[in-house]
């Protein structure tokens, strides 16, 4: 495997509403920020890959507008996943592994504010048996939360503590949407209260990947991707054990997460209860700094929130605040699909 690192990361301020901005306008500043951070221009990049969703945009082929913003003239080597940008990063990492590219620009964005994201996400569900019932994302997460409580894995007080810890941590994150002491609030869908749920917001993120010496030339302390893997589970909630995440555990094993302890974990857990599941699957104890950014509970721009976890973990390595960090991204209802990456600074175990 080639040594590949995240060498630059940028994200927008995540906002409840951005009526005055198009998706492309949200995205453009972060594209410029990561390019400026490395001194690269779009034409220097070996491969470009993005993640987004037509369903959030409300129109087919919505990503073509973003490509126009990238400025792909002369033409570029480029691809797109209709997934969270974390999976765009994975495709770009594979591309660099083939040897066909040495650098990659990865970006993703999502505007949840124009619609009802809870309703929109129901369109991910089995279109014949489940989707027609419109069970929304909070209701499904509540099923999972109740299963955890019934199993004795957590209780409402512990969930509230996760929410509190995340939002307090986000006070130091200038991009976060929800920060500081946030009241637990009323039940949205029992047992989940407002505080257990992510904010609805708009935002974008971008990273630059580079291989080997190119990475060293572009970044004083590259965040090396020591392992990365993702796994999917069955779709139907009826055939899954909601209190566990075998796909996360398998991805973490394949990514080498259990070979040595990590000091930081950025987990893509939009609901407090999902952090409980992920901590267990990833065997994270209190020695690990979990979601120092505030995580998806502080800012959850759908389709970018997973890429932001990779970016936040990398940024801590860039700043010297972490030597070995775990980043996690998820997709689908109740943590159906999960990615785990292990990032390290150069001197992590020298």
């Amino acid at each position: 495997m080639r040594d590949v690192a995240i060498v630059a990361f940028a994200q927008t301020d995540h906002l409840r509403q951005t009526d005055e901005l198009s998706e492309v306008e949200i995205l453009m500043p972060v594209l410029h920020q990561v390019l400026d951070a490395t001194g690269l221009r779009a034409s220097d990049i070996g491969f470009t890959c993005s993640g987004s969703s037509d369903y959030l945009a409300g129109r087919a082929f919505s990503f073509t507008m973003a490509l126009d913003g990238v400025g792909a003239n002369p033409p570029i080597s480029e691809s797109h996943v209709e997934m969270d940008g974390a999976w765009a990063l994975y495709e770009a990492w594979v591309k660099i592994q083939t040897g066909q590219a040495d650098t990659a620009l990865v970006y993703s964005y999502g505007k949840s504010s124009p619609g009802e994201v809870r309703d929109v996400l129901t369109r991910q569900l089995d279109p014949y048996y489940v989707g027609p019932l419109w069970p929304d994302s909070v209701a499904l997460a509540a099923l999972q939360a109740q299963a955890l409580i019934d199993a004795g894995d957590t209780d409402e007080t512990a969930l509230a503590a996760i929410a509190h810890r995340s939002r307090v941590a986000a006070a130091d994150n200038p991009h976060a949407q929800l920060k500081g002491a946030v009241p637990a609030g009323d039940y949205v869908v029992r047992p989940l209260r407002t505080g257990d749920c992510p904010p609805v917001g708009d935002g974008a993120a971008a990273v630059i990947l580079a291989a080997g010496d190119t990475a060293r030339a572009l970044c004083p302390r590259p965040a090396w991707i020591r392992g990365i893997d993702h796994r999917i589970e069955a779709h139907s909630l009826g055939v899954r054990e909601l209190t566990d995440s075998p796909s996360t555990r398998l991805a973490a094993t394949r990514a080498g997460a259990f070979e040595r302890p990590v000091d930081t974990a950025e987990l893509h857990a939009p609901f407090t209860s999902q952090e409980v599941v992920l901590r267990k699957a990833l065997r994270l104890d209190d020695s690990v700094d979990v979601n120092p950014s505030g995580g998806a509970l502080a800012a959850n721009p759908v389709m970018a929130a997973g890429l932001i976890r990779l970016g936040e973990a990398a940024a801590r390595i860039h700043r010297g605040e972490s030597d070995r960090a775990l980043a996690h991204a998820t997709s689908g209802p109740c943590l159906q699909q999960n990615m785990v990456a292990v990032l390290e600074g150069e001197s992590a175990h020298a």
Partner: protein
Amino acid sequence: MPEEPVAVVGIGQTKHVAARRDVSIAGLVREAAVRALEDAALTWADIDAVVIGKAPDFFEGLMMPELYLADALGAVGKPMLRVHTAGSVGGSTALVAANLVSARVHRTVLTLAFEKQSESNAMWGLSLPIPFQQPLLAGAGGFFAPHVRAYMRRTGAPDTVGSLVAYKDRRNALKNPYAHIHDPDITLEKVRSAPMLWDPIRYSETCPSSDGACAMVLTDRAGAARSPQPPAWVHGGAMRSEPTLFAGKDFVSPRAGRDCAADVYRQAGIGDPRREIDAVEMYVPFSWYEPMWLENLGFADEGEGWKLTESGVTELDGDLPVNPSGGVLSTNPIGASGMIRFAEAALQVRGQAGEHQVAGARKALGHAYGGGAQFFSMWLVGAEPPSS
């Protein structure tokens, strides 16, 4: 560099039709996947990862269908990626899967693309609303007709060329059991007398709306050695994108297409595509795109593409057969159309294209494009493993 040679050892398609009311989306994709596995003599357990592609989610009204399809495609416990690059997606999906093998991340990958167009209406799915685009660009034909007109004006091609392509592709489709449009009574006169939809594009020169899926099993050198059927080897593959609109955009021959082809030929060691390539599966949703892409892909000099078509070079028994399968003009499950081009190119060099086999085909090009002629993906496959 860890570039592992990539082999196509399994290919499966559904019989493409206007509406598969007998199967769910999951049933449709599984049909193609099972056929590809059978062709490769492999089971679900042999597959390390699944890469799936389709065109916009709005075509079926299902957001990120890979989540729902994980079970049907045996992906549970495996990595699954969902690619979406507009009309080129079928080709891009195959290339993403090929990269997983080439990078030695996985050894054997199932890749699949589909569209079940009967679940909605692609014409209106492709008609972007104000304020995103000006009105009166109804469907893809409305977007592409002016560029066909520009090609005719630029090259002086007689207005009879488009009908020759449609007549050829629809006759070729009669030899392909999976093709959607089978019109045994097709005549050139019928093609020419069809109603005009978007001048100069007649109804008979447009692609149908199809339900269908296409799957391939890609594997490494060791996997190819175990294959019971002859593999097709990937000699080169590339994607290129350019913006929808910009000063200097050439809609008749987009630079992204030229660059993409040049990259594939460089990887494959092709110096003279016209002589060295034996068959082409080209993304031709409207008949005139055959002569246009012949030039864009380097098979003809600028302004000369229509002469190849007119002289019969691109016929099934011609010197450079184009779309022996019947092409997109005969079968168009949009998200799968690009992968069908890639798969049909592989069938040709495996010698398994049946009645539409090009005799002695050793190297074939699969081509796809999408968006406003802005996304391109191509691969070149050969009967022999790549030499380098």
